[in-house]
């Protein structure tokens, strides 16, 4: 391995790098930057919801022409919720989460020197960067950024007459998303190829850590569903710019009949949700994979039901591609389709339940090392269950009629995919920070960060269910026009206070992250006493990951606390320690687990 001797310049090392570890850090920092914007937006519109039409200096400072004397305009309110959704779902939880940890962990955990194609990996990051830049630029367009909801249903998103954000802002949104999808596809293909072809000797598919399975399946879902969103976006661009009628028909707006004939917005909804629903699992599965790894390591126990976990990931992935219609029960599609989608949707509860119970059984009789990463993983299981259970209500078409598009939905998906995935991302950052930067993050700040975040997450989203059950539709700029909702205002104030505290609390994390990068304690090679391969590489990053030969793998990743006598819990550890690296050969007579 002599090829890493050539001199590296600043540009090839930090900017146009092809090293997967550096690319993963680029994804993380870009994702965090976008995350700050997304969370900040949510704090702004939460203030508007709690204190409608009140004047705030902070609006004056940040909303520029979209406020009058510190009062937010309705158009920018819709723009803020739109861009908040877009940024959080795609830029933070898809690219920021998957991009970061797939890139960091895939080569390290399967025993490869780098991704299958370092060049494509680099392209993937720079396309993501470009799309982020365009998305940020779209915030400064004169008529305002895209504001038709993150689902950008036409005709609203197609007609600038309908809402000002559907002008230049929407064009930039579509261009940004098209580039984003290209980035995501290139990345996903790379992940799949790498996991298929570059596993080290002995690393069979059934010895892969669950993180690898999660990233692998996520990449497959992405490759299957993202192109459909691209085609949906292209057809929308055609409708907007070239006068075609894929989604538009019979429209009378601003005093004139438009020429569009024969299209249907329902077609767009189908195309959008064919990505949109799998997207939920593109966001969630990596977080669940990370959690599996962290819960097992910090419980000092093997993950319970390894094969069942793989099975449930595959089942969730398969089902996720045939349930998109549950977003469209009342869209005007054939009611019979609604029945089919209800059936497939509720089936997802089974693999999800298996996963939740397996996590809990892994905790049972463990020796829990409550590091910040572990707490965030436990928090993930908690919010995943809370949010997942209400899915049983929403997935049932008959019940969905009445709570569709209310705050009940907002509470449900924020808990099950938003908060859960963010928790998975935080857990991953705390856990693999030493691998990324060679230093450790501060523990005390980590604990503060966790407790503030989980209390605020529940404080925001648990009461929000009841606001939804009172019948309050989402995306209302103000609820004061409906006396019937007057009693919800106080609850909204409480929710907003939790949201503001939770949002500001993330500063603790940002500070911890950036200060630890330079001043944190130096990491040891295997700080969490973990089994997986990434902890056999040196702390200092080198091209090619391992200085000598790539290690050979002899066992699965979860031999924690393996005993001399498997039946006797009091007997000694088989290998003298409560963890056994995957590279350790089996002892004579040792049963592989």
């Amino acid at each position: 391995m002599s090829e890493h001797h050539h001199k590296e310049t600043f540009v090839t090392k930090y900017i146009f790098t092809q090293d997967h570890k550096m690319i993963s850090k680029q994804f993380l920092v870009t994702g965090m930057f976008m995350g700050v914007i997304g969370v900040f937006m949510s704090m702004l519109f939460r203030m508007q919801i709690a204190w409608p039409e009140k004047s705030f200096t902070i609006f004056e400072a940040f909303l520029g022409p979209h406020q009058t004397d510190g009062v937010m305009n309705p158009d920018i309110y819709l723009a803020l919720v739109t861009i908040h959704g877009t940024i959080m779902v795609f830029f933070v939880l898809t690219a920021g989460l998957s991009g970061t940890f797939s890139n960091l962990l895939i080569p390290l955990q399967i025993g490869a020197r780098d991704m299958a194609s370092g060049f494509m990996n680099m392209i993937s990051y720079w396309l993501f960067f470009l799309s982020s830049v365009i998305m940020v630029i779209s915030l400064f367009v004169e008529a305002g950024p895209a504001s038709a909801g993150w689902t950008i249903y036409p005709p609203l998103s197609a007609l600038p007459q309908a809402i000002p954000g559907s002008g230049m802002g929407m064009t930039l949104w579509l261009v940004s998303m098209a580039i984003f999808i290209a980035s995501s596809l290139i990345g996903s293909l790379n992940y799949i190829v790498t996991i298929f072809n570059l596993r080290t000797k002995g690393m069979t598919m059934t010895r892969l850590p669950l993180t690898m399975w999660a990233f692998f399946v996520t990449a497959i879902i992405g490759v299957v569903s993202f192109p459909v969103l691209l085609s949906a976006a292209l057809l929308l661009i055609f409708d907007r710019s070239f006068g075609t009628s894929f989604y538009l028909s019979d429209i009378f707006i601003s005093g004139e009949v438009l020429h569009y004939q024969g299209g249907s917005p329902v077609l767009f909804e189908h195309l959008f949700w064919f990505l949109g629903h799998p997207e939920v699992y593109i966001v969630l599965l990596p977080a669940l994979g990370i959690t599996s790894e962290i819960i097992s390591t910090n419980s000092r126990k093997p993950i319970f039901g390894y094969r069942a976990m793989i099975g449930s990931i595959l089942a969730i992935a398969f089902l996720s591609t045939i349930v998109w219609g549950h977003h469209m029960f009342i869209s005007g599609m054939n009611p019979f389709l609604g029945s089919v989608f209800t059936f497939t949707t509720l089936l997802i509860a089974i693999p999800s339940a298996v996963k939740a119970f397996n996590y809990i059984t892994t905790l049972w009789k463990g020796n829990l090392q409550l590091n910040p990463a572990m707490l965030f993983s436990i928090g993930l299981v908690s919010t995943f269950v809370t949010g997942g259970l209400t899915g049983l209500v929403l997935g049932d078409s008959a019940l969905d009629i009445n709570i569709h598009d209310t705050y009940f939905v907002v509470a449900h998906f924020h808990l099950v995919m938003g908060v859960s995935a963010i928790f998975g991302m935080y857990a991953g950052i705390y856990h693999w920070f030493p691998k990324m930067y060679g230093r450790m993050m501060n523990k005390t700040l980590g604990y503060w960060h966790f407790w503030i975040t989980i209390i605020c997450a529940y404080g925001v989203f648990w009461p929000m269910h009841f606001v939804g059950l009172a019948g309050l539709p989402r995306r209302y700029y103000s609820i004061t026009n409906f006396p019937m909702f007057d009693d919800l205002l106080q609850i909204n104030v409480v929710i907003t206070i939790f949201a503001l505290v939770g949002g500001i609390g993330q500063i603790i994390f940002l500070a911890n992250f950036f200060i630890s990068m330079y001043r944190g304690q130096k990491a040891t090679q295997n700080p969490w006493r973990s089994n997986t391969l990434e902890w056999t590489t040196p702390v200092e990053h080198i091209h090619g990951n391992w200085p000598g030969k790539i290690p050979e793998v002899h066992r699965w990743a979860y031999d924690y606390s393996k005993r001399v006598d498997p039946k006797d819990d009091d007997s000694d550890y088989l290998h003298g320690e409560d963890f056994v690296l995957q590279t350790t050969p089996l002892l004579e007579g040792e049963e592989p687990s």
Partner: protein
Amino acid sequence: MLALFYIFIIVAIGVSFWQITRIMNFRSVIASDQDNAKQGKYSIYFLVFLYAMMIYCLIFMNVIMLPESASFEGEHDDNLFNISFWLIGIVQFLIQFLIFFFTFKYRGNKDRKAKFYADSHKLEAIWTITPAVVLVVLIGYGLWQWNNVMDLSNVKDPVIIEVYSQQFRWEARYAGEDNILGLGNVNYIKGINTMGVNMSDQNSQDDKQVTELYLPKGRKIHFKFRSQDVLHSAYMPHFRAQMNCVPGMVTEFGYTPKYTTEEMRLKPEVIEKTNGINKIRMAKGEDPYEFNFLLLCNKICGASHYNMQMKITVVEQDEYDRWIAEQPTLASVIK
């Protein structure tokens, strides 16, 4: 004001970084036994907080929720909802207990040894089959109810009403004597013909255009929805009814009102909610609120999305007959 605000922000950031750097000087980074003990204790405190909040919301937020279904079809919705909610409520309380109690009970220390427990087909079978069985019940009931609501094919003598949405208001058209709606298309929109009704269609002549809905109690209402510009959604929460209005197509929904507006106002839960609202309105010096059924827009449709509403009044059949007779036919309005 703005300058003060910027100064405040800068000071706040400065102070928090100073504090945070101080904490950063504690260099221990991996959870010790003391940390495990402390965090395990906190997880019990958090469990108490979570339970308290869940119970508080479940009890005290009951009053703000929608009253019982005002349509016959919605009864089963309420029923199914209650079954689902009890079920997920119990599971939620149990599982959250397990998660945070285990975090406390098995908090790590030097003397503890984790149990090597990698698999149990029996346990896995239990938590695969149990949810599956429960789901069969929920899916079965749900699909039966879905068909119940969505099937409008065998309705005898319905009241046919077209609801028409546009940025940012609702209009409606009753089918008149013949109970058939005349055809409509955006190309016919002109002057007072705001719904684009084709007046050369014979069925249009006796149609009646209104801006407020009156519904007779106990008769099936067959709604047909059209939209003029963008997607809207006709949401009638009290009747457990909702359907999108899609430009270029006609969508349908139906229900049978169960209570008149007057009867609804006398329900204890409605009185309680109304009193609560009026207390708040009184404090702000606003007019008192009286319960009414409403149709709201529930699909993002533009700047005034938050202000698209139409009043619905449910009355007895004879009062409905009197009201509908008073409304002018389209033929007499649009010459």
